[in-house]
């Protein structure tokens, strides 16, 4: 290797680490988040922010896998890393990060009138012990997608869904495809059934209620979906991507996924375009409506940030009407501000938003406890054991409940 080349390489290594002088007036701020669906939309927004405030924004692009993001964030925050100011976090981490003292309460920073505009479910999920710790940036809820060309109306109950899935499936088209791999998605699929059946994971006092009759009924249903052939056996290995792939290929009648799947179903070139209906998740008993899980991502301010005010301005900018509108139109992201669901420009770009908003109104967030990721990991293993037949649904839930009880009350 020539000396010149070595110098260039050395230069490349050194330059990013060089302490660049702060941006003329406002300094700079670092935002950690996964690559956005349309990064150009995001970059335009950040440019606007820089122009309006004089604060330079540096992005740290995270891995796409949610677990790897969690790992990276934990590594930084446990090491009191001061280089990241604003984190885009999955709503299931809010309580954990808040309890660990890693993110700052934003209670006093957000004016009351701004709070009123935020959808209630996402707003509630950004709280821990009555205090606001994050601002919802975009949201998601679980939905039932179905092939309206093959099944004219969506099933009203889960029982009906199972019957239809078994009766109408064919050689090439499976019945119901959900997320059954041992990971967070399996927990979400189970929780939606559990809640719809009237069950709970935890009592308000921290007791574990998971293994009650509703839990056993919900898990038995899930296991029998696979056992009866209503769902293909392959779902045991599917995460969101694989299960959605089956549905997009026209290989399934019913599919549970987040609201973001809608835009993929209707994308140009989709094999099922125009053949898909979307409905709220079915009811358990035909009386109470089905309960969908709430998903979504919030912006939070690092407790180790030395540029808190700049960080806060960025959070406000990105969660404000203007930015959320741009994301809704440019990326099809569901806004967290109620007003945007009536905005003509947003609805023109996303005619389905009006229907999705109803699903959001009934969506529930997963248990808010600092131990949620740990609780979920326990559930992932035991739910998966029941699905592959290593233990009965009741045994699996009893074992999970015993394990969860050893830590969840220690808050």
């Amino acid at each position, binding site marked *: 290797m020539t000396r010149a080349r070595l110098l260039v390489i050395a230069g490349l290594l050194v330059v990013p680490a060089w302490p660049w002088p702060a941006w003329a007036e406002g300094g700079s701020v670092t935002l950690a988040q996964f690559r956005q669906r349309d990064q150009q939309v995001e970059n335009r927004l950040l440019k606007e922010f820089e122009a309006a405030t004089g604060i330079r924004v540096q992005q740290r692009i995270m891995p796409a896998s949610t677990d790897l993001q969690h790992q990276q964030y934990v590594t930084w925050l446990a090491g009191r890393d001061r280089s990241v100011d604003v984190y885009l976090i999955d709503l299931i981490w809010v309580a954990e990060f808040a309890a660990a003292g890693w993110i700052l309460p934003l209670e006093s920073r957000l004016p009351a009138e701004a709070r009123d505009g935020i959808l209630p479910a996402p707003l509630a999920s950004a709280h821990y012990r009555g205090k606001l710790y994050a601002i919802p940036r975009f949201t998601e809820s679980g939905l039932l997608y179905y092939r309206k060309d093959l099944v004219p109306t969506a099933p009203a109950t889960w029982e009906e869904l199972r019957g239809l899935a078994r009766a109408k499936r064919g050689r090439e088209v499976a019945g119901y495809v959900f997320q059954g791999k041992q990971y967070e998605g399996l927990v979400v699929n189970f929780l939606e059934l559990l809640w719809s059946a009237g069950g709970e994971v935890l009592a308000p006092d921290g007791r574990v209620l998971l293994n009650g009759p509703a839990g056993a009924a919900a898990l038995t249903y899930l296991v029998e979906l696979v056992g009866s052939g209503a769902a293909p056996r*392959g779902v045991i*290995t599917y995460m969101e991507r694989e299960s959605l792939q089956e549905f997009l290929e026209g290989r399934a009648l019913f599919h549970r996924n987040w609201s973001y799947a809608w835009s993929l179903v209707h994308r140009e070139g989709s094999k099922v375009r125009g053949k898909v209906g979307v409905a709220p998740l079915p009811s358990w008993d035909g009386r109470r409506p089905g309960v969908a899980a709430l998903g979504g991502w919030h912006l939070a301010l690092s407790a180790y940030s030395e540029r808190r005010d700049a960080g806060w301005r960025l959070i406000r900018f990105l969660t404000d009407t203007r930015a959320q509108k741009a994301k809704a139109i440019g990326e099809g992201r569901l806004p967290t501000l109620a007003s945007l669901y009536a905005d003509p420009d947003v609805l023109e770009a996303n005619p389905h938003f009006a229907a999705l908003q109803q699903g959001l109104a009934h969506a529930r967030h997963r248990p808010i406890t600092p131990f949620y990721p740990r609780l979920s*990991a326990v559930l992932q293993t035991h739910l998966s054991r029941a699905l*592959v037949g290593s233990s009965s649904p009741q045994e699996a839930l009893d074992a999970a409940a015993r394990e969860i009880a050893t830590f969840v009350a220690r808050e």
Partner: protein
Amino acid sequence: MRALYSAPALGLVAAVFLLPVGQALWTSLHRVWRQVPHETPFVGLENYRLLLASDRFWAALGHTTVFTAGSVALELALGLGLALLVHRKIRGRGVVRAAVLVPWVLPTVVSSLLWGWIYHDRYGLANHLLLTLGVLAEPRVWLGDPVLAMAAAIVADVWKTTPYVALILLTGLQAVDPVVYEAGALDGAAGARAFRYLTLPLLLPSMAVALMFRTLDAFRVFDLIYVLTRGGPGGSTETVSVLAYQLLFQDLDFGRGAAMGILILAAGAMIGTGYLWALRFARGAG
């Protein structure tokens, strides 16, 4: 004076090995739950006791042992065959030798994703091949069954690391002086007998090295399993490293995670010492 010369090396070892291990050891003696940051009491050996008393730990150790034994045995057998094959003077030997190394050169995460698709129940190559050949009547969900998932992980690892074993054995083969075989032939040792009485004993040191490296590597397997199955289904492929990762980064139980790390380190040290000891014993006996 001589001690002074080794000081930089010792300092380096202290900085990159002893310090972190010491810190992990210290953490492992405390209850460190990041969700409860203001309480980190000294708990003695409690974290170790909890681990050693949990079914999950022993299950993970069992899975790791099955994975290690299965993959290392297959890799050694296939690696030996491969080494003998590319050792012979065949046409295009250089190209073959380079091609053999490809699986090993691929980053594990990439090859795991690749194998994930091979095992896919509907689009996967594994089902396609076995159905076409008539071995299977029905497609299998390879990663959806506890036993099959472990076998699938072992096969993926064997595919990836057999070249590495072959490479080490090949160097061993090339170090054998051809004169040995000529002398053997004079004494009536040819073909299978030459392999049994000449090649194998002379290859023993290389085999021991390959075995030791592979056993230690397989014992710490993480990325392959994590990408392929995430330790599932039903925890059936959760190895000790996957468990340690889980404790640290999902559970945020740093104390128990550190204890798990120390236990893995201890097991690794035992495996390494065991091999060195066995090698010395074999040499002494031979």
